[in-house]
């Protein structure tokens, strides 16, 4: 543009009625907008796929996974961590018998087994068991829970998340679920 004096540019020779100018302008915006918007909108919807399509990623038919043999649990009620394995769909890949997560199991005096998800309800770190203090303790922000999973300080928003347990032929099966962190109420996440 430098080779043309700027004064010469805003020449509107078609001193046409304003309406025609307006129509052209409106049409240009609509047509151009449409051309740009269609690919953009399709792409954005594609991007939002995770909240549009719900997919099941793992778990047996009833969601219960084998965790351990009852005989593997300490008889004095000390919690012990066990991994859970399942066939996992990670996007396109089907992983056979892969570690899904881990849980604490406790054998109670009455023979029952209780299970906690070992994910901290605060912000999702893995909670340790401190044998010396007989408590669960999260290394990230020092959440502490007693052996029954009750919170012992104000860091975690709620107690540890307990999981449904069934004992089938001496094997402990746990319905493994993850829950939203950082909220007072226990809300299961879609698997």
């Amino acid at each position, binding site marked *: 543009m430098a080779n043309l004096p700027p004064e010469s540019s805003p020449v509107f020779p078609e001193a046409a009625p304003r309406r025609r100018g307006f129509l052209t302008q409106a049409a240009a915006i609509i047509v151009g907008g449409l051309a740009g918007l269609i690919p953009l909108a399709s792409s954005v919807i594609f991007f939002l796929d995770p909240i549009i399509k719900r997919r099941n990623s793992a778990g047996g038919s009833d969601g219960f996974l084998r965790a351990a043999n009852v005989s593997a649990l300490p008889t004095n009620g000390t919690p012990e961590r066990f991994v859970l394995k399942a066939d996992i769909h990670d996007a*396109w890949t089907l992983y056979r018998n892969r570690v899904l997560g881990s849980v604490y199991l406790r054998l109670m005096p009455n023979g029952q087994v209780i299970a906690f998800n070992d994910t901290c309800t605060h912000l999702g770190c893995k909670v340790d068991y401190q044998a010396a203090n007989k408590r669960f303790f999260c290394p990230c922000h020092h959440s502490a829970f007693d052996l029954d999973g009750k919170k012992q300080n104000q860091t975690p928003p709620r107690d540890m998340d307990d999981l449904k347990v069934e004992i089938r032929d001496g094997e402990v099966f746990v319905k493994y679920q993850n829950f939203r962190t950082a909220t007072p109420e226990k809300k299961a996440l879609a698997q």
Partner: protein
Amino acid sequence: MKALLDWLDHRTGCKALMHEVMNEPIPGGARWRYITGSMLTFCFVVQAITGLFLWCGYAPSTQTAWESVFYIQHEMTLGGLVRGIHHFAAQAMMVVLGLHFFQVIWDGAYRAPREVNYWLGLVLMQIVIVLSLTGYLLPWDQKGYYATKVATNIAGSTPFIGEQIQQIAQGGPAYGHHTLTRFFALHAGLMPALLVGFLGLHIYVFRRHGITVPESAEGKPVGTFWPKQVLYDAVGCLIVLAGVLYFALTRPAELTAPADPGEDFPARPEWYFLFLFRFLEFELISKRGVAFGAIYVPGAIMALIVLMPFIGRSKLGHQFNRLMLVVLLVGVAALTALTIYEDGHNESHQAKLKFAERDAHRVVELAHREGIPQNGARELLVRDAFAQGPRLFKRHCASCHRFDGHDGTGQRILKAKLDADGNAMKDWLGHPISEEEPATAADLKDFGSREWVKRVLTDYETTFAPLKNAGEKGQRFLDGEMAGWCKENKAVLADAANADSVKALAEFLTAQGGRTDLEPFDEQLVAIGKDIFKGGALKTGMLTSSCTDCHAMKLAGDTESLGDGAGPGYPTLTGYAGQNWLMSFLRAPGHADFYGDNNIMLDFDTSRLSDEELILLVKWMTGDY
């Protein structure tokens, strides 16, 4: 709103910029012919948008590239559409690029003072070509894999530094993870960045010189970019988008089977490179080496194109450039048309494409049904009877047998046709003419089905006719006892009154295979067939001898044989044409239970056919997949 704009303008000067952009003077006013540049920019923007979002779903490695594209295409919301837009907008970009280039030459827009901008445009053209080449590989499917191999091998034919160039491009001496990571980085990172940079320069220099105005527009009043030219440009862009959407919605972007270095593929480059592909095929060119046809000649033409601004200084030079442009375009069009014509009339090529399509459909079906294993989707096909059966048939059976007239994979088996003097004959394009190689054993298309059994009983001659090409031992079958039995009983079996009997006998025999892919068997018919098999009594008349007179058979679950047959060399029919029968038969057709001393077929023992291969072949033949 206005206050906000003023605030922003005070700090950025955006109003002046907008004014500058929108009020570009257009001598002679807005014209449709000025829209191609904007259309190209639009194509790039569409590619940038769809590409960035596709990036969110793509995983470049040899075990995840195909798989992630499969997931985008078949599982994710609008994935097929977004990929389709990206796929077809790339092609639209090539078309518009050609148009833009043509216009620049034809209208003389490459001449002084616009030479530099012309060269910037040529750089942009190269960038778009690299984008197209690199993008073709990313799905890591058979088509992209083999077509790109050709491209990198061409790069490897560069004199002196070819090997290095090829290895740098591939990330090593062979294709692998790093080929994909590199191509992806080029495709989604480096090239788009370069394109944006050069496009900025291109537009900047373009604005400096203004539009190239045709003579007809001289003397007419000056218009501005906004709003009329913007509207024209927008309409052009919308037309491009409409075309892209039409294709994206009516034909999904192709995803062939996962790349497999062990399986061939009738690879062709994307249609806009077909001319180069065909050019390299000319004997005149190919005999001078790959570098000549793929690097020197295109390089020389490119050099000439680069020099066009100098050539075009005179009126005559400009006419020369125009002529060259037309010659090039006609040449490209002719070569493209020739390739399409030749491929279209190449039966073998078409059959290969069809077979490849069969794989592509199958692997998607398996991925949905079974899930993709950790090692990638290629494994699904490798252990699939439906995919491997035809290949095994082709390798092991088709030298004698046929499958529906072909080799199992859809290829007819041909040999060179010779003229009277014994020379190979050629057609008008110089391609050799071929003719069918006669089979020497039966066509096994519907082997083991009701139709097959009926045909063996009532028309043995035709079913086994190819044996006449198998020499004296083959002829022995056609003159043998079973053939004789069929001749003796032809009339009675063809008798309309016995139609139900024949049907029952066929039902009984077919049921022995225990196949589940056929129509369910009629128990009543099977029972009637069993009596005929053993006793030979039809509805009207008798068979000259019953089946059990020659053939041994034991029914599944029975302890006693239905018949013991006539001894070695009379094939046992226990479980006839079922998987176990077929496996035993293929392993040792010369066993006393089968053809004995009469056998002319090869033993497919484990040295020829592994257990896994045998199972795949037999499962395919019995429809169990």
